[in-house]
């Protein structure tokens, strides 16, 4: 029996300690927001926080999380949405949405460590997360918006259109 904290709750699970944390989170705890993408820590879709640090849960064995504190996408908003999640909506970031849990987990860790990141900081922190829909420009804007609540709002819902 392996015990760990997940989104603040203590849970225990009977499983091979080599099992990747990803499958424990999804299949045993039923937290389906964390996604499988590649299985070899190349895409970041499975990103969770282990003791506050973003890790790729597809290659993190359950044993490594024993006694640890795991946070998933379901745990970052508290009762509502975090500033980042709200910025993701304001900037209409997701398309297919499959990678976005992982993107948000990486961005959340970035802002916790560095509340006002530069473009270079964003590049480095987000480089492990692939988005096949190409939402990178919007992710960048959403991170900046969350970091700077006073930033002028992009008129996302009122775009200029030329009439030909």
């Amino acid at each position, binding site marked *: 029996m392996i015990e760990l904290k997940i989104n603040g709750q203590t849970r225990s699970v009977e499983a091979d300690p080599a*099992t990747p944390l990803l499958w424990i989170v999804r*299949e045993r705890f039923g937290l389906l927001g964390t996604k499988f993408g590649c299985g*070899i820590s190349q895409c970041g879709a499975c990103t969770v926080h282990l003791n506050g640090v973003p890790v790729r849960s597809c290659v993190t064995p359950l044993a490594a999380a024993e006694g640890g504190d795991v946070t998933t996408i379901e745990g970052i908003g508290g009762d509502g949405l975090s500033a980042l999640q709200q910025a993701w909506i304001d900037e*209409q970031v997701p398309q297919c949405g499959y*990678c976005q849990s992982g993107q948000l987990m990486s961005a959340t860790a970035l802002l916790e460590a560095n509340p006002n990141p530069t473009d270079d900081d*964003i590049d480095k922190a987000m480089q492990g997360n692939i988005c096949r829909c190409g*939402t*990178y420009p919007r992710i960048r804007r959403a991170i900046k918006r969350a970091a700077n609540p006073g930033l002028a709002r992009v008129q996302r*819902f009122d775009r200029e*259109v030329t009439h030909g």
Partner: protein
Amino acid sequence: MGKWTRRGFVTAGVIAGGGFIVGVAIRPGNRTIELSSLVAADDEMLVNSWVKIGADNRVTAIIPHCEMGQGAHTSLTQMLADEMDADWALVSMMEAPAKAEYANYPLARGFLGGFDVPAVLSPTVNGIFLQATQVMNLQITGGSASVRATGVYGMRVAGAAAREMLLTAAADAWQVPKAELTARDSMIVHEASKRSEPYATFASAAGRLTPPAEPPRKRMEDFKFMGKSMPRFDIPAKVDGSARFGIDAEVPGMKYASIVRTPVFGGEIVSLDDRGARDMAGVRDVIDLGNAVAVIADGYWQAQQALAKVGIEWDTKGNDAATTETIFQQFGADLDSATEREAWQADRELGDVSTAFAEADQIIEAEYRVPYLAHAPMEPLNATAWVRDGICEVWTSCQNPLGFRAEIAAALDVDDETVIVHNAYLGGGFGRRAQGDYAVQAARLSAAAGMPVKLIWSREEDIRQDNYRPAVMSRFRAALDTTGRVLAWQNQYVDKHEPAEAPLIPYAIDNQLIRYTDSPTHVPFGPWRSVDHSQHGFFTESFADEVAVAAGQDGYRFRRDLLKDLPRERAVLDLAAEKSGWGASLPDGRGRGISLQYSFGTLVAQVVDVTVSDGDVRVDRVVCAVDPGFAVSPDALVAQMESGIIYGLTAALYGEIYIDNGAVAQSNFHDYQMLRMAESPAIETYIINSGAPWGGAGEPGTPGIAPALANAIFDATGTRIRRLPVKNYDLQFRIHEPEEVV
């Protein structure tokens, strides 16, 4: 002039102006049990297939398309709600169930014949296409067709018809002339008597009326939701982890399956040694599907571990010698042979090309190649199936629920009606999820194992068992006179797919010969975002640049001069050039390239800025001008341009599926590289609403980016990229030569 029939459930008709109505009108008392149980509660009624009005006055748009991030669920709802004059706060949507009644006929018509059919022929043509699509069992989301086909010919018509029927029903109920009534924010209002009632009051009476054959549609200046960037319905659930994709299906008692199919396409299993695997913890079964082996276990990781322990000997059916090189040798030989035998199929023959070449002052030639490409959607392919008690229930994420149903039924040799497909959000599609192989596998595994099975493909399986974007070889010749005028354009290529017009160019060149020959290979292929436009866009817009260089002209002005009778094309090109600052001189190591593409009804011009240093290319900026006729949701269109550009850039810079020993050499994201945040350029998109027939959004951003990039690299380095991907080139920037001083 067709009318909506009142007998059956499928109704279709033609309206003045070549419009095409497709809908399902459900007459009270004559609805199918299946439909009513799925989309109507007891106190609701179906007015027609695309709109439902509840007793609570809530309008539900029923959308026959999947959502894969393109925003179709929201854009189509906007179109319906606008024509209905609905209150947006009372509007919601649901995806249509996989029922034959929701097959999207306009899409097939678009794929098969284009939208412009002479009115006099329409009834016949529509009849043919209706039959064709019924046979094909289409419920596809593809061809960038949701808005321009289902939206224009379905949702808007359905919304307008519903509004008219509600007004008629209210006029009857209140005994007032219909002209005195207005529909506003989901209310029917009679100003003279100060009466107003919600739509729901009249819904059941409206549902008994004969739908108008030609409900009036709004003029553009009266649009309320169309043309506005409404927040997408699907986004909130995609930021808190609650959105459910196919992979998130949960069925009581389900087990997990991992699968491997024959690495050499077309191969079969010769022998199987599963002794080690069956003894492993959690393993329930090992199943031989003939061309694939699957392990079913209590957990997915257990299934994967056990599958790796299965010993499999494959028969490669003689395809194990094929490589990308032998395939391109075959293409070259087949092109040579077609030349010798004059055995071509023509896309376009204009003027007299041979005379033009004979009289040319200058002839330039080039051969282009693009490799096979995988789709690699972020959500690995998956399906959960439960075959039991004479039915097969499948939970998946796909672009074609009805097609999947038919494929599964055929594979299990059962009636279509016994297969139920539940479609969730798609974690990317790009064409891959229009093909049902993975769902068929899941159904067969559940049937064989006698339990509900969730099959998840590994990323390795996804990369190695795709239906790939075809590799293509394309050869060009152009003839120029002494003044640099283009006399002739000749293009010969191998293997044609869809859409037919992909290799055509918009430029006013009097003599054109565009033709192809077939050269089949053993590599399975399928539609990949923008289909044939993705290859031919790169070929034609790169070679156009070569011709411009040979003519001593600037790539923008060269194109512009050849578009003088196409003002819409010119306007898009001009806007992209203007916004990019075209014409300004660039420092050494930087380059700028332009392209123009018309695909899926939408015009796109793109300008790419690159910096080349130490042999590496950095894409700094992309300026994109787009004319979709009308942008139903401008921000969603911008998002699709960004998406199409990054998808196309990824392919142009890195994308290569290499065939070796008859199989795919790549396996995962470490060797099938993706564009990431740091390489992602700044993208600026500018929209022109020209008023032309409405075009698509999901694909038109993709085909022009590779040539604009290649043209920019040529500008920076003098190296012409004729074989993608760019990563295979060792690029060094050149010194920009100063303007000649006279």
